[in-house]
């Protein structure tokens, strides 16, 4: 943190310039009429297996993930590894559910999950609930990508908010112009430099520290494993798997992952990707280990990084490790991988939120029956508003609230599962029953988080046994129970179930 590192900064800026150029050129890639929402917001649904792989990889494994996971491992040890079972079980779920989602959205011209819910359940209110949940869950997530950029700028020795503002302005302009094509093309570059960075880190750092055995030996023993359950409580034996399962189920309900899936050219591309995307899980596992490498390297005790840790907390662990282990120019390369790694998901998230706003709020309630061009323009403007909202949030609201909001967003988005995923398979649930379940899930989940001071784990007391589990999952259970009971009640009362605008043949 002693002033600006010239070599690192030069490499960083050069890569950033390359990516900016790609972002603008992208509008002409696989050219389409960008005045149509499905062209701007879904890349014309033309991405094949490989582009989808890059896009989803760049989209799901965000800069914030790459910073927060090792930070959690650095601070909390084994618990931070829940990211691993989480990504391992996520893809089998995707293989089962998402090809079906792709088929029906493709056949019916749906662009968002809320579009599907609208058509399937014939309920504007339920679609609005799904859309608003998606937008609320996405906004703080975009904000946290900015935190990723802030931390690496700080590590490069750049002070002030202006550089962040400039980076975001560039991002906003090329997203406006090129739509989903920009992050799709940039993702190829981003993934390449992230793989190089992580492979270099995993090769170089253990060599400097004396091998993996030395690294694990340097970790305090109580951090190496999950704490064994004590009498009357399942402890981390419950929190670890529920965090993994809840996060895996929530992953593809997020609007940005849905956008990534729907932009692919066919269900075969999605199915192939479920076997290919674990390459990123492997990468994430290696990145999680960087947390232990940072511990073993003792970066938190190095006075050179004291200011960084004070400012950014454990999120500074990985940048400090890079500064400590790499020559300046390669540290710049590694930081560029994080910053560019933030731009890709930030762009996709803002596009996904814009699609939701345009399709399910603007066209539904503000300007019914508006034309294609107006719809696309509304989405482009919405993507700007969403991004600047996130920027203002990060600059003027304490970072703790952004993190709290993002965790809360995870709890919320899981509550759309009955409408979106169960709805793919059956219409047995009554539309108002699903809506009632959603409302209860949202309320209960938020209350649990608030009670625990925005920690994701809520200790449920079952008789004499305490089960600390992911609040999102507890809320989902309540959500289901209410949806089923309310369905029985509405059916008994003969309430209208609405007309299904999809057909059985749409799903295969």
């Amino acid at each position: 943190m002693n002033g600006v590192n010239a070599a690192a900064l030069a490499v960083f800026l050069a890569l950033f310039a390359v990516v900016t150029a790609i972002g603008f050129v992208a509008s002409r890639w696989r050219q389409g009429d960008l005045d149509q929402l499905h062209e701007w917001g879904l890349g014309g649904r033309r991405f094949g297996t490989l582009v989808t792989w890059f896009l989803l990889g760049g989209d799901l494994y965000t800069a914030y993930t790459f910073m927060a996971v090792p930070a959690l491992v650095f601070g909390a040890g084994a618990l931070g590894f829940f990211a691993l079972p989480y990504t391992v079980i996520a893809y089998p779920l995707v293989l089962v559910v998402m090809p079906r989602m792709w088929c029906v959205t493709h056949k019916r011209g749906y662009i968002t999950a809320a579009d599907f819910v609208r058509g399937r359940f014939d309920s504007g209110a339920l679609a609005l609930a799904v859309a608003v949940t998606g937008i609320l869950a996405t906004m703080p997530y975009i904000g946290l990508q900015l935190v990723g950029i802030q931390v690496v700028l700080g590590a490069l020795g750049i002070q002030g908010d202006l550089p962040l503002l400039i980076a975001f302005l560039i991002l906003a302009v090329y997203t406006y112009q090129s739509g989903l094509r920009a992050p799709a093309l940039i993702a190829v570059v981003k993934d390449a430099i992230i793989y190089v960075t992580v492979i270099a880190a995993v090769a170089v750092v253990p060599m400097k520290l004396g091998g993996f055995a030395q690294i694990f030996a340097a970790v305090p023993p109580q951090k190496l494993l999950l704490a064994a359950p004590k009498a009357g409580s399942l402890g981390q034996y419950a929190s670890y798997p529920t965090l993994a399962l809840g996060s895996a189920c929530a992953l593809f309900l997020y609007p940005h992952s849905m956008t990534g899936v729907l932009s692919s050219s066919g269900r075969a591309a999605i199915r192939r990707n479920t076997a290919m995307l674990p390459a990123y899980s492997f990468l994430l596992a290696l990145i999680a280990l960087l947390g232990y490498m940072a511990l073993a390297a003792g970066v938190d005790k190095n006075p050179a990084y004291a200011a960084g840790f004070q400012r950014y907390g454990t999120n500074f662990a990985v940048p400090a490790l890079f500064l400590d282990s790499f020559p300046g120019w390669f540290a710049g390369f590694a930081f560029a991988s994080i910053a560019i790694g933030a731009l890709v998901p930030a762009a996709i998230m803002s596009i996904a939120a814009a699609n939701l706003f345009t399709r399910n709020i603007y066209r539904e309630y503000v300007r019914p029956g508006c034309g294609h061009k107006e719809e696309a323009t509304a989405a482009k403007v919405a993507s700007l508003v969403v991004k600047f909202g996130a920027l203002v949030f990060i600059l003027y609201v304490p970072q703790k609230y952004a993190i709290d909001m993002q965790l809360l967003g995870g709890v919320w988005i899981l509550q759309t599962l009955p409408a979106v995923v169960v709805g793919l398979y059956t219409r047995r649930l009554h539309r108002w029953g699903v809506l009632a379940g959603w409302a209860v899930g949202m309320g209960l989940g938020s209350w649990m988080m608030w009670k625990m001071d925005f920690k994701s784990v809520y200790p449920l007391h079952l008789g004499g046994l305490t089960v600390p589990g992911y609040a999102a999952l507890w809320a989902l259970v309540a959500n289901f129970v209410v949806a089923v009971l309310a369905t029985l009640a509405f059916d008994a009362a003969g309430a209208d179930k609405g007309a299904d605008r999809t057909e059985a043949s749409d799903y295969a």
Partner: protein
Amino acid sequence: MARDSRTTSNSPSWLWYLLLLPPFVGMLWVPFYNRLEPSIGGVPFFYWYQFAWIGVSVVLTTIVYFGTRDAEP
């Protein structure tokens, strides 16, 4: 949706999807792997076990992908 003449295998294709269950059991039942030994090259069991499941799940999803491919339109 309808099973046309191209789907000629004797077992219904959904049986393939049962192969997707082991990762859930292996990953979500923590007592299986919350231990240090046996370690490999100084890497505790807890860590290499979870790394290994990435590979196992890739193999399983690939098998399911090929096994259910003829059911695709």
